[in-house]
C-alpha cells in the first residue's frame, strides 16, 4: 500500500514538473528555451509511464518508453539542426 502511495506521489511530482516545463514552452522567450523544455517533457513522460506501468502491474508500455526516448532525441536533434543551419535535411548535390 505504501508503495502505491509513493508511486502516486512520484507521478504527481512528475506531472507538476511537466506543467512547469509546459509553462516554459508557452512562455519561453527564445526557441532554444522551448526546445529544451520539450525535451525535458519527453524525459518526464518516460519516467511517468514507467511509474505508471509499475502501478498497473504491466510491461506492455515498455516499448513506449523506448519510443519516446528515440522520438525526443530525434526531435531535439532535428530542431537543433534547424536552428543551426535553417534546414533539417541537407540535400547532397
Amino acid at each position, binding site marked *: 500500500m505504501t508503495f502505491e502511495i509513493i508511486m502516486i506521489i512520484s507521478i504527481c511530482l512528475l506531472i507538476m514538473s511537466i506543467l512547469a516545463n509546459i509553462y516554459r514552452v*508557452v512562455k519561453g522567450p527564445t526557441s532554444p528555451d*522551448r526546445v529544451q523544455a520539450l525535451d525535458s517533457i519527453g524525459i518526464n*513522460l518516460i519516467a511517468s509511464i514507467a511509474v*505508471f506501468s509499475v502501478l498497473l502491474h*504491466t510491461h506492455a508500455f515498455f*516499448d*513506449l518508453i523506448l*519510443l519516446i526516448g528515440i*522520438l525526443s532525441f530525434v526531435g531535439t536533434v532535428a530542431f537543433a539542426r534547424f536552428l543551426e543551419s535553417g534546414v533539417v535535411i541537407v540535400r547532397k548535390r
Partner: protein
Amino acid sequence: MSLLHLAILAPFIFAIIVPTLYKYIRKIHTGWFVFIVPVILFGYFSRFLPDIITGKTVLKTFAWIPTLHINFTAKIDGLGLLFALLITGIGALVVLYSIYYLSKEKEQLNTFYVYLLLFMGAMLGVVLSDNLIVLYMFWEFTSFSSFFLIGYWFDRERSRYGAQKSMLITVLGGLCLLGGIILLYIMSGTFSIGEMITNVDVIVNHDLFLFSMILFLLGAFTKSAQFPFYIWLPDAMEAPTPVSAYLHSATMVKAGIYLVARMTPIFAFDPTGTWVWLVGGIGIFTLFWGSFNAVKQTDLKAILAFSTVSQLGLIMSLLGVGAAAVHFELDENIYTVAIIAAVFHLINHATFKGSLFMVAGIVDHETGTRDIRKLGGLMSMMPVTFTIAFIGAFSMAGIPPFNGFLSKEMFFTGMVHVLQLDIFNMETFGVIFPVFAWIASVFTFVYSMILVWKTFGGKIQLEKLEKKPHEAPIGMLISPVILASLVVIIGLFPNGLLGRFIESIAHAILPTYEFEVHISHWHGWFTPELYMTIGVIGIGLLLYFTLSKWTKVYDLFPKKLTLNQMYDAFIPTLESGSSFFIKSHMTGFIRSYLAYIFVFFIGALSFTIWSTGAFRVETTNLAEIGVYEVILALLIIIGCVTIIFAKSRLTSIIALGSVGYTVSLFFVLFRAPDLALTQLVIETISVALFLLAFYHLPKNFRHKESRRFKLNNALISVGVGVVVTIIAIASYSTKLFDSISEYYVKHTYDPAGGENMVNVILVDFRGFDTLFEISVLAIAGIGIYGLIKLRLARRSEK
C-alpha cells in the same frame, strides 16, 4: 411482329437508307424515293377500310416489355384508320409537293426527308397504338422530329427560336401526358386503352381520376395548340412550307385532337362535367381567339397558323360537347351530332388547310414574299393557284357547296343543342357556346376573304415583288389540286362510303352509341343554323369591306399582356432567376459550403433526435472517474483552447501536437499500448509536417493576427459539438446488445495463434481492412511523390 407493325415502322426503316440514297444517287431528287413509302402505306391502310366500315377492328400485339405490361399493340379502328389515311395520304401529297418546292442543289434533302419520315412513322405509331406507353413514345418522337423540321433552316435565328419554343411547350405537355398515363395505370392496372374502357367504372370513381384527366388535357392542349398553349404554332411557320402543310395543319396538331377523341370513352363518363367544360370551353375560346387574331396578321402563313389554331379549337369544342352525350339518355340523342361534326370537320380541315398552305408556299415561291400588303392581283397570272385558294378559303369560311359549309352547319347544330342540356349548368352558362361559335365564324369568314382577295384580287404591285410572278410548275400544283378536288367532292357527296366511314369513327369515339350519318346541304327554312350562316355571311361581308375602319381595335389590346410577350419574358426571368439562385448560395468559398454542411448536419440530427425521442441518460453502466483522466482531460481542453485562441500559427501547431501526445497518454491510461505507440509516432511526424508547411508560408502570412471572431461560426461549432455530445451520450445510454469482443478474447490464441489481440484482429480476423489501409497509404505516398515531382504547368512555361 406482324405486317401492321412493319407498316408502322416502315418510315423509320426507310429513314435509315435515305442518306445513302441521297449520297449516291444525286441525279434523282431524293423525294421520289421517299414518295414510294407513304403511297404504299396509303394503299395498305386503304385495304382495311371495308372491314372497318362493317364494324370490325384489327388488333395485333407484339410483346415488347411484357413484364411491365408494355406491349407494342397495334389497333386499327375507325379513328385510328382515319388518322392513318390522313397521315399517309397527305404525307404522299406533301412529299410530292416538296419535290418541287425544295431545290435539289441548294437544300440538304437527306436531313429533310429523314426528319419527315421519322415524323410520319411516329405519327402512325401515335394513332395506331393501343398501349399508352408506346403511344407516349411515339408522341415524343413527333415532338422531336417536329423540332428538327421547324429548325430545318438552322442558320436562321427565327427558325431556331420557333423550334425551341415548340419543343419546350410540346415537351412540357408530353411530360404531363406521361404523368396522366401513369395515373391511369395506377387506377386501372393496365396500359391498354381497350382494357381501360372495359373497366371505366373503376377509373371514374377513383380519387386520381381528375388529376389524370387534367394531365391528359395538358398534353392534348399543348400539342393541338389550344389556348393558352397555341403560341408555338405561329412561330413554327418558320419551317419549310411542306412541313407547315403536313405537320401544322393536317397531322401533328391533330394528335391532341386524336388523344381527346381516343380518351373520350374513358373521361367522358366523368360525373362532375369537368371534361365537357374543359374540352368544350377551352376549345370554343381557342376558336374565337384564333379567328379574332388571324384577321390582323399580314403574313399568309401566320393567317393560316391562327386559322389552324381556331379550327382546332372548333373540333375540340365539338368533342367536348359531344362527350356530354354519355350523360344523356334519350331515344334520339341529339348531342351525338357534335361527335359526327367533329370527325367530319377533322377530315375537311385536313383537306382545305393542306391545300391552302401549299398555295401559300406557291405564292411565296413565285413572288418572293408572303406579305399580303405587298401581294395582290395575282388572279390573272396564277389562275390555277387562285382557284385552289378560292375553294380552300371558301370551304374554310363555310360557304356552300364546299365541305366546310357542311361541317360548319353541323357545328352550329351541335352548339345550339348545348342549350338543351340540363346538366353541368349547361342550360345557363352554355349560352356562350353558340354565341362564341357564331362570332368566331364571322371572323373566320373575314380572314378567309382577306386570304383570297388581298392575295389574288385588287391591283398588282410589281415594284414590291422580288420576282415577276407566273404560274407555278405543274408538279407543285398536283398536290393542292388533288386536295381541292377532295374539298369539292366531299362537299358534293358527303354521304355514302364517307358517311359510313364517319359512322365507324364516331362509334370508335363513343362506343356506346350507334350512329347514323345524314349530311345534307339543306335543313329546311326553320332551323337556326340557316339564319346563323346567313348572318355570318352578311356581317362578315360588312366587316370585310369596313376592315380599315375597325382594325384599330387590335391596338387597344396592351402589348405587354399578349401571351407571346409573357412567354418571352418568362424564359429570361426563369434564366436570371435560376442564375441568381445559384449565385446566391454557390459562393465559391469552402467556408460557405462547410457552413451549409454543418448546419444541415445539426438540423437533420437534432430533428431526428427530437422527433424520435432518442435522447436519454443512463448512469448504471458508467465507470468510475479517476484522477488521471481528469488531469489528462484538462490538458486536452487547455490544448484545444490554445489552438483556437492562439495568436500565431506556430503556437497552434505546438498546441495541436500537445493534444496529440495527451491522446497517446490517454491510450496508455486506457491500456492500449499499440495505439499509444502508433499515435506517438504519427503525431510526431504530422507535427513535423505542419512545421514544414508553416516554414514555407509566404512571409506576409506567417505571423498573421489571430482569426477574427464570427458569431455564426461560433454558433455552428458549438451546435455541432453539442449535437455530437448528445448523440454520444444517447447511444452509450442505449446499449442494446453485448459486445462481440468475447469471441476475440477466447479465440486469439487457440485458432489464431497470437497473444496480442489487437494485432491478431488487424492481420487475422479482419485483415481485409488492413490490406486496404495499406493501399490507402500507398496511394497517399504515390500522390505526394506525384505532386512534388510532376509539375506540368511549370514545364510548359519553360
